[in-house]
């Protein structure tokens, strides 16, 4: 059991290094779970450890990658590996057509072993998922798998399709694509496992595994991570809405609550001496968003705009303005953006007038244009959020415009996606703006959620 205890300790250590908070209580539960489940079935073990160690769904993908390293399917390479690419592709096509997960996993191991190795001297050799997939090219099997399945008359999952007439047939291509995607993930996991055997599991578990999307810096997030983040907008908005509702409830008081008054009157012999007050519904606040949507920070501002759009019911009014060096109102575009969040950024950049005679950010120009053309949008009930890195390409930051906005508004908050220690370096005017309005570091979706919950007016 000590070998298992070591693995659990290693697994927990790696998860903690990725920011999952695991106490000793959970670790003890995990050990008890392993004792109750035994080691025979790896998938039960996976579920048991996840149930005891995790507290939310957002950590599951991370957990699975780390679990695969500490409780690998096997050790070493597969027993029968084939370096023959065509043979592998044949068998892969068969497994994809049959949607046979177990076989796909075995083929992923074979593929990494046969096609993914590089280097020959110890220390510089390893296994690469990228190289494996580049040689195997599973995505090019689509047509063949489709033909196989059509030939058998089904979708490959055991049902007896009744021939071409069925509507579900048009879903086939997407289904095959999802299976191929799953296979690519398996290859990635297998390559990580093989490398970990060579370099030490702890090292790979800490460096080779992707953090959860909400902890990735907006500035460095890739396309797929941004897409993953966009899918979290609705759940995050719901969470924030409840938090805002709770704050709102705490904020106001009003009419008499008969039931509770009666209840408290019992201590005075049934005479209602002290009326209990029910809370009053306050007027909801107004929000204005000013967003830098230039290339470097667009991932951040797109996400924030979608989040605010999802929260719009919390406010009497939300108006959103986008800028690069010119500024334009995009509230309407955002309303339509709900149906197609992935396309929002492109639509804003295509349809709004955001640039003048050059293409780089100019905060001074944009903020000045806002104060001049849309100053009326800001009143004593308005909270203004400015989103951007305050990198103004050496042009005048136009502090009077910001002062003017701050004077009209109830509150102005600036959310900056750059790490605080880079504010003021190079062409960043962050310190100057931070002297006039509250500026907050907002690098990740997690930080954004916490800030919004705290800063949004209720």
């Amino acid at each position, binding site marked *: 059991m000590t070998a298992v205890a070591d693995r659990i300790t290693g697994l927990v250590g790696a998860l903690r290094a990725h920011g999952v908070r695991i106490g000793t209580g959970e670790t003890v539960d995990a050990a008890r779970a392993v004792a109750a489940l035994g080691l025979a079935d790896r998938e039960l073990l996976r579920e048991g450890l996840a149930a005891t160690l995790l507290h939310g*769904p957002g950590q599951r993908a991370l957990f699975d990658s780390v679990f695969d390293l500490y409780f690998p399917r096997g050790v070493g390479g597969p027993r029968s590996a084939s370096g023959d690419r065509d043979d592998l592709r044949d068998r892969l096509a068969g497994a994809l057509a049959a949607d046979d997960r177990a076989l796909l996993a075995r083929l992923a191991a074979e593929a990494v072993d046969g096609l993914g190795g590089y280097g020959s001297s110890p220390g510089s050799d390893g296994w690469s998922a990228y190289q494996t997939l580049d040689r195997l090219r599973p995505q090019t099997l689509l047509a063949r798998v489709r033909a196989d399945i059509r030939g058998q008359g089904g979708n490959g999952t055991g049902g007896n399709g009744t021939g071409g007439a069925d509507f579900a047939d048009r879903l086939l291509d997407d289904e095959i694509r999802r299976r191929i995607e799953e296979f690519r993930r398996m290859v990635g996991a297998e390559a990580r496992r093989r490398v970990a055997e060579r370099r030490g599991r702890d090292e790979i578990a800490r460096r080779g595994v992707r953090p959860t999307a909400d902890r990735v810096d907006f500035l460095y997030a890739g396309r797929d991570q941004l897409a993953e983040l966009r899918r979290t907008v609705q759940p995050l908005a719901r969470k924030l809405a409840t938090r805002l509702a709770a704050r709102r409830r705490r904020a106001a008081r009003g009419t008499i609550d008969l039931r509770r008054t009666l209840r408290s009157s019992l201590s005075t012999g049934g005479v209602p001496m002290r009326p209990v007050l029910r809370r009053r519904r306050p007027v909801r606040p107004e929000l204005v968003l000013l967003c830098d949507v230039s290339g470097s920070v667009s991932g951040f501002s797109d996400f924030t705009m979608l989040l605010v759009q999802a929260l719009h019911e919390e406010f009497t009014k939300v108006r959103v303005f986008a800028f690069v060096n010119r500024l334009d109102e995009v509230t309407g575009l955002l309303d339509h953006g709900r149906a197609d969040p992935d396309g929002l950024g492109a639509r804003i950049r295509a349809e709004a007038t955001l640039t003048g005679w050059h293409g780089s950010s100019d905060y001074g120009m944009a903020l000045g244009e806002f104060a001049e053309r849309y100053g009326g949008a800001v009143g004593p009930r308005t909270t203004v959020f400015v989103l951007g890195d305050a990198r103004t390409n050496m042009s005048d930051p136009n502090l009077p415009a910001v002062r003017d906005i701050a004077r009209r508004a109830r509150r102005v908050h600036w959310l900056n996606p750059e790490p605080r220690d880079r504010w003021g370096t190079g062409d960043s005017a962050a310190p100057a703006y931070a002297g006039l309005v509250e500026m907050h570091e907002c690098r990740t979706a997690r930080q954004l959620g916490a800030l919004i919950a705290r800063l949004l007016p209720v």
Partner: protein
Amino acid sequence: MFTSVDDVSVRLAEAGYLASPAVATTVFLAARLGKPLLVEGPAGVGKTELAKAVAQVAGARLVRLQCYEGVDESRALYEWNHAKQLLRISAGRDESWDETRTDIFSEEFLLPRPLLTAIRGDEPTVLLIDETDKADVEMEGLLLEVLSDFQITVPELGTVTATRRPFVVLTSNAGRELSEALRRRCLFLHIGFPEEELERRIVRLKVPGLGAALTESVVRVAGALRAMDLRKAPSVAETVDWARTLLALGADTLAESVVRDTLGVILKHQDDIQKAAAKLDLDAL
């Protein structure tokens, strides 16, 4: 309660609940480790049903606390029967207030609510705290207390301690993030949309009259809709409803016209229906 993970699966299946390996494993561990089980996931994936099925196979009574915005101690724990107390107060005019007070704060005037009910009594009990995310944050403190010591103090009567700890299932649709402290008390289970194979079995179980080919197609379309980023993705409940509808319509294959006419059964928002129709290449809706 259960001898193995398999035992959980087999017995739940007999009660009409088809458990994924994750569900069976976690239920088994919750029983083994004696910890509350927090089940989170979208609406309609069988969270509530799971608690009911566990109660059924364990031969336990099911005590359910349905949470909603504003649910409070008096709805969750216990309440004094004010009306009855006031009657009693006005009936006993010539008693001293001390005598009256002792009397009106006795068992006779107590209205036990689900948490107290589940803790008192010594028959096996499954306590279902349903849709915990709908309750306010203050409620969590109370739940945390109860789930820590399984005892409840009624100041006027004393402390009630569970002689037999209930099997506790909390569910949440993740409408609100539950507190870290509450999560730490529990084993965590996320139920998402089921794998195709499991969903086919569920449909077969709930709508046995539907042909195999049609069952398969229904599940495939549900899977495709879930991949679309809709406002509300169809859940198991909707898949089952759709299967029932198709059976009632006497459809024998999933023809395009059938899908077009019944999409409203599986999707709830008009803009979702429009979007899905476009992505599925349905003719004008």
